């Protein structure tokens, strides 16, 4: 075979994508169980997802959901925090916790031969945590110290302030870690109360994905979680289901970080909910605009101008109104130019620069081709199935994904860009050297930047 270098090789269409069967059942206590067989490496993954994340933090108790999640592996029954850590390590378990805006998710992955031990340990932790006062005091102190450290981390400062700018006092308006004042006011009783009202079998989903049968996974689920008692006090009604109000006008704000070598840039606005019928069109729009290395924003700011190591856009999806955000860390001297270019790109896609056929083809293909690689590991499959539960998406979601994305047209992209990206309502935030950038920032057309205090 000789290589023809005059043109790129053709690529045949992908084989038809099928997602493995998701078997659902509900335990007597109301726990929703979903199992998927994944016969490759002898590994099994469990996810327990409870309905309630940082958006369920009561007002003035920002950070409660995250502390409650942190307390889960601090002991159960006769096991201390140290014993729990030891028990996890002995089965080589990967244990992780994610506190999102709408849900709290616990993951445990282990070798299939330790499936029962892993499931039973995870069940004890999630359903019967010790919640000892001395552990609470230590965990809270670590979070307070962490909060203090985050003040030195420009991306964290920007992320925190940007949520506040977009959401105001809405339950989504804070990071899971909360704030200093709220953390200091919390008591162990608050955490126990949160656990009782949010960590309930009827509000939870257990996903099991492993190199074994549905039947065996169902047995493991029943053995480990069947005794989770559903009847304990009142269920939480506090969720962030209501949409936050949108900003009225464009806004430019800055948080001073004297002498910073780079400026953290965020531009965005509240857009729509995860379960919007426009989801596929928005994904394609975002892929053209800033979702990938070859998207417009990165090609402009990085590859053409050299202002940044990378710039990207995306939706931080939630059940209620979720934000669209452009983010980049740009050279201080290029702050105003980068902001101007970024704003122009966001405005252009629904305006005078609709996607070309080539851009559209690339965007759709990059989202749909090679799709099976997203489901190589048990953790990937388990996380995917947990997302279906979180956003109430059908079990056919993954198989419908490819045709839906491929059906998105250039008109659809322009239409959703016009609908959800409104240059007149974009919020722009800079975390950077105020003295060095404020004068030139005033020339981007959004007036003089408003100086914000850094949050405690």
């Amino acid at each position, binding site marked *: 075979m*000789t*290589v023809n*270098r005059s043109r*790129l*090789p053709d*690529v*045949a269409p*992908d084989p038809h994508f099928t997602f493995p069967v998701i078997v659902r059942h509900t335990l007597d206590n109301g726990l929703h169980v979903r199992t998927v067989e994944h016969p*490759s*490496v*002898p*590994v099994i993954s469990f996810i327990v997802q409870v309905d309630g994340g940082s958006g369920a933090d009561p007002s003035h108790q920002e950070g409660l959901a995250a502390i409650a999640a942190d307390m889960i592996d601090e002991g159960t029954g006769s096991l201390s925090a*140290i*014993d729990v*850590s*030891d028990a*996890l*390590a*002995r*089965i*080589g378990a*990967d244990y992780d916790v994610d506190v999102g805006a709408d849900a709290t998710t616990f993951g445990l992955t*282990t*070798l299939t*031969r330790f499936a029962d031990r892993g499931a039973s340990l995870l069940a004890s932790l999630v359903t019967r945590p010790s919640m000892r006062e001395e552990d609470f005091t*230590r965990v809270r*102190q*670590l979070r307070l*110290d962490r909060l*203090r*450290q985050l003040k*030195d*981390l*420009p991306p964290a400062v920007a992320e925190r302030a940007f949520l506040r700018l977009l959401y105001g006092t809405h339950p989504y308006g804070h990071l899971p870690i909360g704030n200093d004042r709220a953390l200091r006011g919390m008591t162990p009783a608050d955490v126990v109360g949160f656990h009782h009202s949010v960590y309930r079998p009827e509000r939870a989903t257990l996903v099991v994905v492993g190199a074994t049968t549905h039947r065996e996974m169902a047995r493991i689920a029943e053995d480990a979680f069947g005794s989770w008692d559903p009847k304990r006090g009142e269920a939480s009604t506090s969720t962030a289901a209501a949409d936050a109000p949108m900003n009225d006008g464009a806004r430019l704000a800055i948080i001073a970080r004297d*002498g910073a*070598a*780079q400026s953290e840039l965020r531009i965005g606005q509240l857009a729509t909910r995860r379960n919007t019928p426009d989801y596929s069109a928005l994904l394609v729009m975002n892929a053209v605009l800033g979702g*990938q*290395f*070859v998207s417009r924003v990165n090609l402009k700011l*990085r*590859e053409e*101008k*050299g*202002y*940044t*190591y990378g710039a990207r856009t995306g939706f931080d999806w939630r059940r209620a109104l979720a934000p669209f955000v452009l983010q980049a*860390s740009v*050279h201080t001297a290029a702050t105003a130019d980068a902001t101007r270019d970024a704003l122009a790109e966001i405005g252009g896609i629904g305006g005078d620069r609709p996607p070309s056929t080539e851009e559209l083809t*690339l965007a759709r*293909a*990059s989202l749909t*081709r*090679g799709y*099976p*690689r997203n*489901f*190589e*590991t*048990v953790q990937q499959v388990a996380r995917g199935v947990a997302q279906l539960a979180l956003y109430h998406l059908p079990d056919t979601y993954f198989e419908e994904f490819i045709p839906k994305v491929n059906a998105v047209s250039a008109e659809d992209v322009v239409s959703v860009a016009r609908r959800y990206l409104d240059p007149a309502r974009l919020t722009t935030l800079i975390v950077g050297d105020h003295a060095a950038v404020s004068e030139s920032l005033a020339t981007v057309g959004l007036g003089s930047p408003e100086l914000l205090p850094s949050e405690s």
Partner: protein
Amino acid sequence: MLGVTDLDLSFSKRTLSNGLDVIVHEDHHVPIVAVNIWYHVGSKNERPGRTGFAHLFEHLMFEGSEHHNAGYFPPLQRAGALLNGSTNTDRTNYWEVVPTSALDLALWMESDRMGYLLPALTRERFETQRDVVLNERRQNYENRPYGLALIAILAALFPPDHPYHWMTIGAAEDIRAMQFEDVQEFFRTYYHPANASLVLAGDIEAERGFDLAAAYFGEIPSGQKPRPVQANGALTQERRLLLEDRVELPRIYMAWHSPAMFAEGDAEMDLLADLLANGKTSRLYRTLVYQRRIALDVSAYQSSREVGSFFLVAATAAPGQSLTELAAVIDTELQAIEDHGPTQDELERSVAQAEAHFVYRLQTVGGFGGKSDQLNAYNVLRRDPGYFAADLDRYRNATFESVRAATKAYLPFDRRVVLTVVPRGQQALSVPGAEPVVVS
């Protein structure tokens, strides 16, 4: 032990006549193939005053080649590929994970930039990427709390002419001084078949993999294999340094020279790091963070490298706590392991975790750390792609005595670098006798 007995990473290997190693691993679970190529060049091949070049060059590999004189990403992403590259001290790797039907395309693209990069490389592309790298350095090092610490540690740990004296990102002034003209020689010296290793892993029959590799890469002329980099440099004393940074809480780092990657004692240092600082049950976490609550966090790792490794322990003081006290506790724990070794229980736990992670890594064919990357690591750094089982055995065969002996041999208190990072203007928060250093 976890009782994982039948683990393996099967493969076939052939070497093309131009010297390119080709390795194929079949795994037909998912209709994708991972293409992974290592060039045996990293920042260790640079010299003082010219640091950061290997990494900048990696960026240039994505800017187009003679027969595809445009960005590297679009054709591959259009075919559904995931792709990236990275540079460290020892090697530069590039990978694509593609649908099986796009394997030809990925090989065409990889071979074109191996064989025909220079005609597409312009001064303008070079200068833009130089700016991008300066941004990368500002974002990941200069503008990040404690981001300059490792630069200071490596500079003190290794003498100025040692290739690990500088970090892979390079010195800012060196990056600014890079010349377009230097690119050609670098490419000719290091980017050729005899200094590269190609792995195809996934939904591909071995014979077809070899045929495709020969077709796309066979025409590329061989080159001279670069001489292995060798270097020595032992510490003769404890060096105490202090760095002021924009941080809220002071942190202490301790660093030692340790056995090279895969050398005797390397696995023991990995296990030691785990039992010192991984999880609440680890010795340092339990003492510093859980019981005495004088630290906010603690970490330890063995940074395994080709020419020689280093072992690092780091802990951040809780507000109002003294680094001197943290240092004393760390020393006490190290001394205890040196005197008595870990308990059988601790060692079993650490080995169990290491074994489980060997299994978890077998789940992915591509990307950083996936099976294709592992095979290349074994082939390039061990000259043995079949090293998987022996690699796992290094951990299984460790004993409490071998961990104790390694701790004693490699972590002496009087030959190490101790760096403290303190909030600006608060040098008094450092440990006694620390000399200020400036890093930019």
